[in-house]
C-alpha cells in the first residue's frame, strides 16, 4: 500500500495540480463576475442559471468544457511518460512490484484528474450559492427546455437543481479521471510529456466534432459531459461512453504493462 501513498503524494503535491485547479477556478470566477456585473440587481436569476456548468449565457461554460481534458490531464497524467523516459520508474520498481506501481499510477492519475475537474465546479457552485437564490428553473427558459428534452436527469434538474449540479460534477469528475487513464495509454506511443497531455484533448475535440451529428442522440463526449445538454443525450449512451473510456484504457495499460519486460 506504500506505493499508493507515494503516487498520491506525487499527484497532489505538485505545481501542475495547483495550476490546473487554478485554471478551472479562474474560468468559474470569471463567469461569476460576469453574472454579477449583469444580473446582480435584477434578482430574476437562480443559482442553476449562473452555475458554470449550466450557465448558457456566457462563453465560459464552453471554455471550461472544451478545456476539460487539459484540466484533467495537466496535474499528473504526464508522469507516466516522464517516469518511463527519465528512468525514475527503475527506482520504484526495485522496491515494489511493477503491477502495484502501474495500479498506483493509474489510481493517482485518475484521482488527480477527477479532483482538478471537480474542485473548480464545486468552488463555482459555492460562490454562486452565496450570490443567487436556489430557485427552481424558469420553465420558459431555453435552458430548461434543453435539459428536459434529454434523458439525463430532467426531473432532478426541475425539482432539485443543486442535486443536478452535484450529480453532473460527479460525472464530470469521473470523466476527468478516465481521461487521465487515456493519457497513460497515449504515453506508450507519445514522444513527449506535451503530446501525452494533448492526446486526450485532441481525441476529445476530434470525437466532439465528428460525433456531434444532427444533435440528437449524440455520441460526442464533449456534449455528454456538459450539464447544459445543448444536444440530446440518452442515458445508455452516457453509460456506454463511460464504460468504454474506462475499460479500453485499462485494458491497453495492462497489455502494455505485460509486454514491457525491460525497464
Amino acid at each position: 500500500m506504500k506505493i499508493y501513498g507515494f503516487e498520491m503524494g506525487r499527484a497532489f503535491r505538485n505545481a501542475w495540480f495547483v495550476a490546473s485547479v487554478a485554471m478551472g477556478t479562474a474560468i468559474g470566477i470569471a463567469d461569476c463576475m460576469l453574472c454579477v456585473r449583469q444580473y446582480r440587481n435584477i434578482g430574476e436569476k437562480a443559482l442553476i442559471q449562473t452555475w458554470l456548468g449550466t450557465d448558457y449565457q456566457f462563453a465560459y461554460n464552453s471554455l471550461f468544457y472544451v478545456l476539460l481534458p487539459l484540466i484533467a490531464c495537466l496535474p499528473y497524467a504526464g508522469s507516466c511518460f516522464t517516469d518511463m523516459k527519465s528512468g525514475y520508474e527503475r527506482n520504484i520498481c526495485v522496491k515494489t512490484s511493477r503491477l502495484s506501481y502501474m495500479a498506483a499510477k493509474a489510481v493517482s492519475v485518475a484521482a488527480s484528474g477527477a479532483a482538478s475537474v471537480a474542485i473548480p465546479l464545486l468552488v463555482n457552485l459555492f460562490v454562486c450559492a452565496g450570490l443567487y437564490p436556489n430557485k427552481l428553473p424558469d420553465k420558459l427558459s431555453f435552458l430548461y427546455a434543453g435539459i428536459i428534452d434529454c434523458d439525463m436527469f430532467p426531473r432532478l434538474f426541475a425539482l432539485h437543481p443543486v442535486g443536478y449540479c452535484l450529480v453532473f460534477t460527479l460525472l464530470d469528475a469521473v470523466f476527468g479521471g478516465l481521461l487521465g487513464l487515456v493519457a497513460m495509454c497515449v504515453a506508450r506511443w507519445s514522444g513527449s510529456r506535451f503530446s501525452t497531455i494533448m492526446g486526450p484533448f485532441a481525441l476529445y475535440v476530434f470525437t466532439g466534432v465528428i460525433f456531434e451529428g444532427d444533435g440528437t442522440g449524440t455520441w460526442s463526449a464533449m456534449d455528454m459531459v456538459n450539464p447544459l445538454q445543448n444536444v440530446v443525450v440518452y442515458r445508455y449512451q452516457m453509460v456506454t461512453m463511460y464504460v468504454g473510456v474506462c475499460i479500453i484504457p485499462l485494458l491497453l495499460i495492462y497489455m502494455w504493462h505485460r509486454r514491457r519486460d525491460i525497464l
Partner: protein
Amino acid sequence: MSGITVEGLGKKIKGTVILHDVNMTLEPGRIYGLRGRNGCGKTMIMRSLCGLLIPDKGTVTIDGEVLHRDIKFPRSVGVLIENPSFLPQYTGYRNLRMLARLTGGISDSDIRTALMRTGLDPDDSRTYRKYSLGMKQKLGIANAIMGEPDVIILDEPINALDEQTVENIKTELLKLRDAGKVIVIACHDRDELEFLSDIIYEIKDGTVAGCEVVGE
C-alpha cells in the same frame, strides 16, 4: 543472505540475442566486477539481477527465492543503472526520503548517512534540477547504498566524479563489502575495477566469457 545464483539466463529482443546462457554465482561479502565492451550485455545482466528485466530463459535466485516466480522484486537491493534519475523539484534529501518510505525500515539518519558517505550535504536546499552532473551521480550512489541493502548494483558508479570522491566511494564500497553485502559493479576503468573487485566476470556477446579472481 546466502547470495545470488544466475542459471542459464537468456533474453532476446526483437530477434536479437541480448543475453545467452549466463551463469554466475555471487556470494555475500564480495565485490563482483563486470567487464566488457559497450553493448556486450553488462547492463542487461545488472537489470536481470534486480528484477528490471524479465528473462526468456533461466533464473535468478536471490537468497533461495526465484525472481519473477517466488518474488516480484528483490527484498533488499540498491541500484544505480545508467543515469541517475530523481524528481527535479525536490532536494536530494527529500528525493531519498520519498524512496525510503517505499522500502520501509530506512530512518532519516540512514538517509543523512548515505548522503554524507557520498559527499553530499543532507541540508543542501538546492533542488535536484540544480545539481551538477557529479552531484546527480553521487545522489544515485547514495540512493543505492541507503539503508545498506543486501545487494548493491552499480553501473558505472564513478562516472563524472572527481578523484577525491572516487576515493571516498571506493572506501565506502569496501566497507559495505566487509559488512557482508553482495556488490556488483560495471566500470570501464580497468584499474578501478581491478582495485575494487574480488572477482571479475568478462562479458562478451551476452554471455560470461571468463572469470578472473583478482590477486591470484
